[in-house]
């Protein structure tokens, strides 16, 4: 119980720190968004009025205090450039990013755990090695390059999937999810494979074999609980990658998500929008990783004892 309270306090502190850093970074970005919003014929008076209303000329500490107060009230303000409430913009874009990340995480789970276990059950060790090399190869390319290449192959050449993203078509999600999943899959798969082989060579598996357990039962009840935890923990730690990965994946595939929105907000120095996005990202990443950690603790009794 105490551990949970400490955890919650840590979580709040972490969100506060992240949000403050986000605010300072955006504040320090060079450039003036007023002209961008008001256009080339804007008069100096119109520009001054815009800066006043957006609070662009206030000193740093006053803006920070005002910002903290509004954030505590869950009021993220209005986007400077699009002139719509930040909440609306984020809610409008969140579903597709959530879908993309969910599809990518599901792909990682399938490619890093489900398929290797099946391959192992079938007893094809070399198949598993080739599979691992394949993903290691795919992960070498930066996400942007990978996206362009798979699009050219699967949409342009083979014509298996549409080139232009259409959220209502399930097929459209395949390529973006795979591109986003490539790098984490390579890492998690390799780790899991290693852990699995290590477990197979451990004394407790030797004991199980001596007791005459089937290979299948050994894999499921002896090897997996030990091999899974480390790889799952690696996946949980890598969650932030999925968020940053969406930036380019969404831009290349034309997905209406938070990644693309962030990308535009940075370029336009859209302070309110950027800070709102940072808060959403910070809160969701910490929340998910805490949940995953709790799940891991449930899976692995040793972790429970260590923290009690």
């Amino acid at each position, binding site marked *: 119980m105490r551990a949970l309270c400490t955890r919650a306090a840590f979580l709040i502190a972490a969100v506060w720190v992240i949000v403050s850093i986000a605010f300072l970074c955006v504040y320090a970005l060079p450039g003036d968004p007023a002209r961008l919003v008001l256009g080339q014929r804007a008069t100096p008076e119109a520009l001054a009025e815009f800066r006043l209303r957006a609070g662009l000329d206030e000193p740093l500490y006053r803006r920070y205090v005002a910002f903290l107060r509004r954030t505590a009230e869950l009021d993220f303000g209005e986007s400077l450039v699009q002139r719509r409430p930040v909440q609306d*913009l984020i809610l409008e874009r969140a579903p597709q990013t959530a879908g993309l990340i969910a599809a990518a995480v599901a792909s990682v789970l399938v490619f890093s755990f489900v398929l290797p276990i099946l391959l192992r059950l079938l007893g094809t060790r070399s198949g598993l090695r080739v599979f691992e090399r394949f993903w290691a190869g795919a992960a070498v390319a930066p996400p942007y390059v990978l996206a362009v290449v798979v699009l050219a192959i699967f949409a342009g050449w083979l014509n298996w999937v549409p080139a*232009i993203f259409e959220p209502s078509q399930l097929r459209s999600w395949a390529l973006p999810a795979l591109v986003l999943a490539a790098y984490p899959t390579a890492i998690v798969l390799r780790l899991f494979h290693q852990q699995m082989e290590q477990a197979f060579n451990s004394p407790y598996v030797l004991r199980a074999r001596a007791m005459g357990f089937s290979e299948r039962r050994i894999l499921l009840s002896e090897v997996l609980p030990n091999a899974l935890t480390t790889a799952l923990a690696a996946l949980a730690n890598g969650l932030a990658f999925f968020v940053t990965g969406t930036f380019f994946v969404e831009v290349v595939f034309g997905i209406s998500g938070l990644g693309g929105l962030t990308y535009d907000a940075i370029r336009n120095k859209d302070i309110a929008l950027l800070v709102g996005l940072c808060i959403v990202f910070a809160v969701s990443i910490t929340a998910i990783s805490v949940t995953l950690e709790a799940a891991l603790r449930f899976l692995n009794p040793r972790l429970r004892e260590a923290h009690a």
Partner: protein
Amino acid sequence: MSVRRHNLSAPKAPLAVTFTTVLLLFSISCSRPAALTQGPSLAILYNAEEQPTEKSAVAQLLQSEFRQKGISVRLDPVSNTLYNERLSKGDFEATLNLWYLDYNDPEGYLTDFYSKAGYRSAKYSSAEYDGLYLAGLLAPTEADKVRYFREAVTLLDHEVPWIPLYSNTEIFLLQPRAAGFRSNAYQYYDYRRVDMESIRASSDVEVQTLDPALAYDLASKHIVTQSYEGLIALDANSKIVPALATEWQFSPKMDSLTFRLRAGVRFHTAPFFKTAAEREVTSIDVKSSFERMLKSNSPYTYIFDHVQGAQEFKAGKSTDIPGFRARDKYTFQIVLDRPFPTILEWLLAPAAYVLPKGLPSNYDLSRGSVGTGPFILQSWDGVTARFVANPEYWAADETGRRLPYPKTLTLRIIKDANTALTGFRQGELDVLNVPLALFSDVFELDGRVKPAWHEYQLHEVKLNNLKFLAFNMQKGPWGNDLGLRRRVDEAINRDLLVKQLFRGKARPAYSVIPSGVPGFE
């Protein structure tokens, strides 16, 4: 007015264009021995997030040409917001910039040089120029306007605050059935006559707003012009034609303009209409739309500067503009505080489009459009705009068939040029706007279409936009020394630029007003 903000279309300059540029630069540097640099070096600032492929290719080409003539150049690409900041502070020597308008009036190209204007990319100021500019702007007749503006242009040609480079040609590839697509020199895209059940097209930059009063970037304009309309419009030949107004007339002294509205035009349905009668467009709606635009912080509030009472209204001293008169249900009059014929062209801007009087101030226009245009916006998710045909749209074609032909229209933001190209080839897009980044895929070096594209229709439109190099006239040595600026001007080979870089799909520009603008052909 409004300068096109064509933002990052692809995170990297496409390889083919970069490669062509490098080859080009290489061949130039081989053909002639480099002259020794003489005199001061020139720093060229540009926005590397706005049409990045085109800007960097042009900048590099200029750099190499100038080097041949002994002028050393340093390129200074910066981000979007930083560019705006440095430009307004005057922290630059010269800048590569672009200018495009929403209406066919020469004044828009000249405002940048007026010493009291808001933007002033060249920081130019000259009492003589101001006199000519104002005389043209406030001229009582079109003929006088053109005469003063021509004199102003001559003055600029002499002093070289800008070096005009070229005007773009917009290229579209169309699926054979999409041949009815039209667009004009001011980039109004018309899908009404495309004879397809559903039509899909794309834009390559993000949309800033769905509110016509605020729309000044090209992507926003593309979307709002499908659902909203003004009193008048520009047709495919960039001529003014009737829209919500069927006829209009200036008073003999050119100090008031009266519109006769089309009867029976209805706004798209929306929850805030209480009765069916409220949906009909009347002169009250026009008046309230114009006042709404002035109240918003729109980039276009200047278009009503000479309307009686507009200044007081803008300053918050009055709640009504007497210069906007709803004389009867279908008669709307604009009363000006002086003879001002240019007001007609300025009314073409999307900021002067008509919305219903009863529109609540906090209404979210992304939930659905409330205009009178041919297509009704059904949904918008930040990337995709889905429209259905407006069954009550007023216009019909020459044979009496009702417009628009398509039942649905889908406009998508696709930032990556290669994705759009692949999608078009797979038949997922019906209209493809071909940016410079794709020229090497579509055109041979001499500008002919590559055989792979012969099955598609090619639609080419000469734009009345301008790409130019502006000097900071308040900063030495380039700003003070006419001889230096002339040397730069003479160092540019515009034909080479148009031929080699654009494969002939652009027009060399020699004047600050593009050659397609009325009175300056």
